[in-house]
């Protein structure tokens, strides 16, 4: 067929069609450079907890920020307006990426992230549906930053039965959950301020193949408590590993604990397979 000269179209119209199709490529990205609310379930059931995905997308290559943005940037600010009978639960941020430019460190997400917002529907919830309203502000940055503001709403039906997950978004929610930092049963953590540094002492559970030389990093949960830094220096004393981190200009959020996540390199093979674990280090008296 292709060799049939009669079937050959002139080059120019084909070129125009091709170029026009190229122009449509940006349209193929759903919600490019914006924010969207995605319900996990087909409806909500009174007396249960449910999850809504807050999907933030950027132009290719741009990034948004974790709850601690690092040296610059801003965590997304979400202001919800909820109907009677719906209460806000936890907001979960997937493990962010470490980004470095001109010696400044930031934590965030390239291209797209889905934050998981939990809500509780009271058992007394009336009616056949509810509307959740979100006013969101966030920064998108590449070599410059832009401030984004958007208001969206989400209508979800209310039914008395257990809701199924929406098939179209199952993968998205599974991926977002798999990327959340996980709690650390069996691990102990302590932090001590010594001069201009934090000494973060970590003891993994017995038998855990913890190997910080493979590039395990600590990201503090609050901006200002620890200066964001490239991989710090780990030292081992028997079962306890110590990471030295530069102290930031502000105290930790709570006086008793230094909170953050230990982030494992994505190419590691040792268990557990979490991308990061939550660390709540008890603060010891200054050394």
């Amino acid at each position, binding site marked *: 067929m292709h060799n049939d000269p009669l079937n050959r179209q002139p080059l120019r119209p084909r070129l125009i069609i091709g170029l026009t199709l190229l122009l449509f490529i940006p349209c193929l990205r759903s919600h490019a450079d914006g924010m969207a609310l995605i319900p996990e379930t087909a409806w909500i059931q009174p007396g249960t907890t449910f999850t809504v995905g807050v999907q933030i997308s950027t132009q290719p290559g741009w990034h948004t920020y974790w709850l601690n943005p690092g*040296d*610059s940037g801003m965590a997304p600010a979400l202001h919800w307006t909820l109907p009677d009978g719906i209460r806000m639960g936890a907001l979960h941020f997937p493990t962010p990426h470490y980004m470095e430019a001109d010696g400044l460190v930031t934590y965030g997400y390239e291209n797209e992230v889905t934050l998981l917002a939990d809500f509780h529907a009271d058992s007394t919830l009336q009616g056949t549906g509810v509307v959740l309203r979100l006013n969101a*502000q966030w920064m998108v940055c590449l*070599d410059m930053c832009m401030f984004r503001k958007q208001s969206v709403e989400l209508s979800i039906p209310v039914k008395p039965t257990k809701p199924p997950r929406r098939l179209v978004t199952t993968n998205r929610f599974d991926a977002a959950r798999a990327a959340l930092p996980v709690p650390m049963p069996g691990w102990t953590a302590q932090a001590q301020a010594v001069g201009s540094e934090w000494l973060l002492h970590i003891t993994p559970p017995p038998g855990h193949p913890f190997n910080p030389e493979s590039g395990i990093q600590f990201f503090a949960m609050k901006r200002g408590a620890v200066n964001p830094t490239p991989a710090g220096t780990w030292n081992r004393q028997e079962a306890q590993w110590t990471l030295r981190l530069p102290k930031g200009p502000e105290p930790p959020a709570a006086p008793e604990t230094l909170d953050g996540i230990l982030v494992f390199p994505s190419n590691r093979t040792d268990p557990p397979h979490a991308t990061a674990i939550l660390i709540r280090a008890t603060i010891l008296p200054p050394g």
Partner: protein
Amino acid sequence: MLKDIRIIACIAALAIVTAQAQAQETTAVVGKPAPEFTATDSAGKTRTLAEFKGKLVVLEWVNYDCPFVKKHYGADAMQALQRKYTEQGVVWLSINSSASGKQGNYPAEKWAELVAERKAAPTAVLLDTDGKVGRLYGAKTTPHMFIVNAEGTLIYAGAIDNNPSPDPATLKDAVNYVAKALDAALAGKPVETATSASYGCSVKY
């Protein structure tokens, strides 16, 4: 001969280590002498920190195209601080460390117009295109604020206020750390919040 080379190598190594240590010590630390610097202002004049000895000096890292900076200039908030405190004898230096070709970098002759457009009132705008002063002070963001007292000691380093957002609506209820520190210093009192985590766009080194 071999011994001589070893000794020379040792001395060279020691010199490098000492130089490194000194280089690290020159970064800005609150409570310590503010690092001296020399920079050219937008009028082409050479300015030094030393020339302002005896006065309170504010160093404001600025990039007029950064959304966080726009919050403070769009609402006439930064300019109001500049006017209020320069009238009381405070020296206010706006420093732009954007590298050539990066966001916020403008030719020297454009700055008078940019400042006039905003009705800004800094004592001078310093053009730190090579980022030397910015690196010396560890300026991370725009804005990033530093205050040097009359004795040349750094008395504040950090954010302009306690609300890390580019939304102008957040200005009303924010605690302005710089105003508080300047008021304290002018009244001869210690600065209550002397360090904070600066927020904003990254400095475009």
